[in-house]
């Protein structure tokens, strides 16, 4: 536990909000480098909430930085994964059920508090734009820093696909609602086609990748894999929830199509994690990853009120690491240091990765996968081609929605060439 933050963290969230508001934000380094093996954080039985605390003032869609939204969306995904894993683990490990239930209850409340920071004036499609910006900028940060060359390729591969989703959803937002998605991405991320969603559909066996080795992999590699698996899984679940809320058939189709790609991405990212990790080892890594992510958020957050939340939950997660590490050492009779690094690696960079993304786009647009290998699209498996042809046999929603779409500041309609003329025809005709 860091003494510098202890007193603040013991206050209620409302008090923390007030404290944060009273002083203008100054970016400060966390007082002492985090030590995953020694820091105790806030112990589990002192982690409390009230309903009022869970439902706090959301961030502001108009005035908060886009990366605040990005962090909130990702951390909701991280906590969602904590619950998902915790339940799966409980179903397979009777003796751990009590311990899992205790930690999971707190994490469920953490997820609630974080997810409820999304404002009500941000509709599901606008939040979708936020999800795709997460997938672009967080994946780009991960891809740039990943020490394993093969896995860096895996991340760049996924990046170009999610990058395309932002473009497709932006076209949808513009063409149904007359809204410019850049009001959300705030010019940090390009709104142009990536690897076209229509060609992202692959046979399930071509979505599997090689695993990292649990004993030899760099700790950062594990954190990256756990982070992106969590983010993509939540993205899939979100699209599956909100897709049917749209009336427009193209919107419903587009969500169906992109949710299918997110399922592919979850398949890809979970396949890189060594399945030989024990259940407790995985649990410990999940908790360490939550520390890493809250710390990354803390390092970059510009909204002081939300920064106080990251700070509080960082301490909660350190408490979870301690709790699970003791359980791990007691149960498996080995040192937590075999699994966890003492020091955290560099944080995720919440910033625009425009040049990295563009360069990847230039070099790797035509990449596909055959089995665990990355190949040119010409070398795809017959299984993937057959599957894709089948899915696209009655048309491609992602191509339809963005037919000739060129992002324009203020929205497509600001460009006179895109308006319907009196005969009902569009001026623009542009092939991708």
């Amino acid at each position, binding site marked *: 536990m860091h003494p510098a933050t202890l007193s603040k963290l013991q206050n209620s969230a409302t008090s923390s909000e007030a404290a944060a508001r009273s002083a203008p934000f100054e970016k400060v380094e966390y007082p002492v480098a985090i030590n995953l093996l020694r820091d105790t954080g806030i112990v589990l039985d002192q982690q409390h909430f009230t309903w009022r605390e869970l439902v706090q003032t959301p961030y502001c869609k*108009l005035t908060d930085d886009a990366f605040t939204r990005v962090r909130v969306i990702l951390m909701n995904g991280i906590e969602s994964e904590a619950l998902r894993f915790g339940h799966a683990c409980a179903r397979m490990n009777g003796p751990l059920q009590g311990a899992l239930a205790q930690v999971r209850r707190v994490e469920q409340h953490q997820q609630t508090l974080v997810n409820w920071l999304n404002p009500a004036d941000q509709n599901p499609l606008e939040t979708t734009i936020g999800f795709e910006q997460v997938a672009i900028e967080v994946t780009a940060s991960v891809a740039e820093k990943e020490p394993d060359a093969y896995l860096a390729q895996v991340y760049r591969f996924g990046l170009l696909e999610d990058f395309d989703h932002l473009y497709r959803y932006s076209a949808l937002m513009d063409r149904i609602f*007359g809204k410019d998605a850049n009001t959300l991405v705030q010019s940090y991320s390009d709104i142009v086609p990536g690897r076209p969603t229509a060609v992202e559909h692959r046979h399930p066996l071509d979505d599997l990748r090689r695993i990292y080795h649990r004993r030899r992999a760099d700790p950062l590699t594990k954190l990256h894999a756990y982070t992106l698996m969590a983010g993509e899984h939540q993205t899939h679940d979100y699209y599956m929830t909100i897709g049917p809320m749209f009336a427009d058939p193209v919107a419903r189709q587009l969500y169906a199509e992109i949710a299918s790609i997110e399922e592919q991405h979850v398949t890809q990212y979970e396949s890189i994690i060594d399945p030989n990790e024990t259940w407790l080892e995985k649990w410990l890594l999940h908790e360490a990853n939550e520390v890493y992510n809250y710390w990354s958020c803390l390092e970059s957050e510009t909204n002081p009120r939300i920064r106080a939340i990251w700070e509080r939950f960082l301490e909660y997660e350190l408490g979870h690491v301690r709790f699970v590490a003791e359980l791990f050492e007691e149960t498996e009779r080995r040192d937590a240091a075999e699994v966890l690094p003492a020091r955290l690696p560099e944080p995720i960079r919440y910033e625009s990765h425009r040049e990295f993304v563009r360069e990847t786009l230039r070099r790797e647009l035509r990449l596909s996968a055959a089995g665990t290998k990355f190949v040119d699209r010409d070398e795809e498996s017959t299984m993937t081609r057959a599957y894709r042809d089948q899915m696209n046999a009655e048309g491609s929603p992602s191509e339809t929605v963005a037919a000739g779409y060129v992002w324009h500041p203020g929205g497509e*309609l600001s460009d*006179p060439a895109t308006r*319907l003329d009196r005969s009902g025809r569009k001026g623009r005709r542009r092939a991708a």
Partner: protein
Amino acid sequence: MTQHRDGELINRTGVGAAPELAEQMIAGPGEFPPSSEGSAQALAEVRVTYAQQTEIFEGAKAAAGDGASQSALIEPGRSVLLMDKLGERLAFEHAGARLYEALVSKHRAYGDFAGGPGAEDLMQILGEEYEHAAMLEHAIAELGGDPTALTPSANLATNVSAGLPQVLTDPRTNLLQCLEAIVVAELADNECWTVLNALAREAGHEELAATCQQAIAHERDHLRKVRRWIAAGHGRSAEGENRSQSPDTSERDATEEEFTFSKDSPVDREGYVISDEEARETGATQSRATQSGATQSGSEPQARKGKRSKG
């Protein structure tokens, strides 16, 4: 038990659809009372508490029209409220253009109905929505603002009207149902262009005000037409007269609906028509015809939409 009657679909939403089940439903609360005392007012108390305790952060100030939070959007010294409302209209016109594009699709799918719009009627309105948006972009830029920024009022307006595209783009709704949705947008358009006109005039932007007047004339025309099409779809005239009237007669009648007023109607300071009773209470003496600056020659319609008169 609910069941199909002679193979026809029945609406299952009311208690009348399943009287026996409904009887059991009604008996339930008698045996199992509420766990807490009070009324729906309890929700109001929480809302008030949140409103009072919630941090007044930058966005809330922006939504309330606070000038400081708008500084990034416009140059100092400009009318913040005017810029906010220009942004609102622009967002609404862009959204409105997409609504009419959807309506054109709906027309293609369902075709004409007697007295309803033709494709060219809808295209004309759509073209005017495009023109309004282009004019607003130009006006915002001229005043030193950023036409691509989402202003607080724009954000609010798009949330207020969020249900409209859901109706317009739903393949299950027909042309008439969509017209009933779009009349909501047209009513808002008429109201908000009037406000924008007043703000522009107060700020001394006469050229902008004149353009607003032109847009108001368009929007009145849109509203009149949409009302007439809906009336035709219902099998009535805009004033409840029978549908056998000639188109010319319908058009004239539509301009004299109860929601419009004569030149002699009293108005308040903002130019809204008010009732005689309200005029006596507020001491307003102006009529529409005498209100200075409110009329642009050649562009003012016969009657002005406003508060419904009881007089």
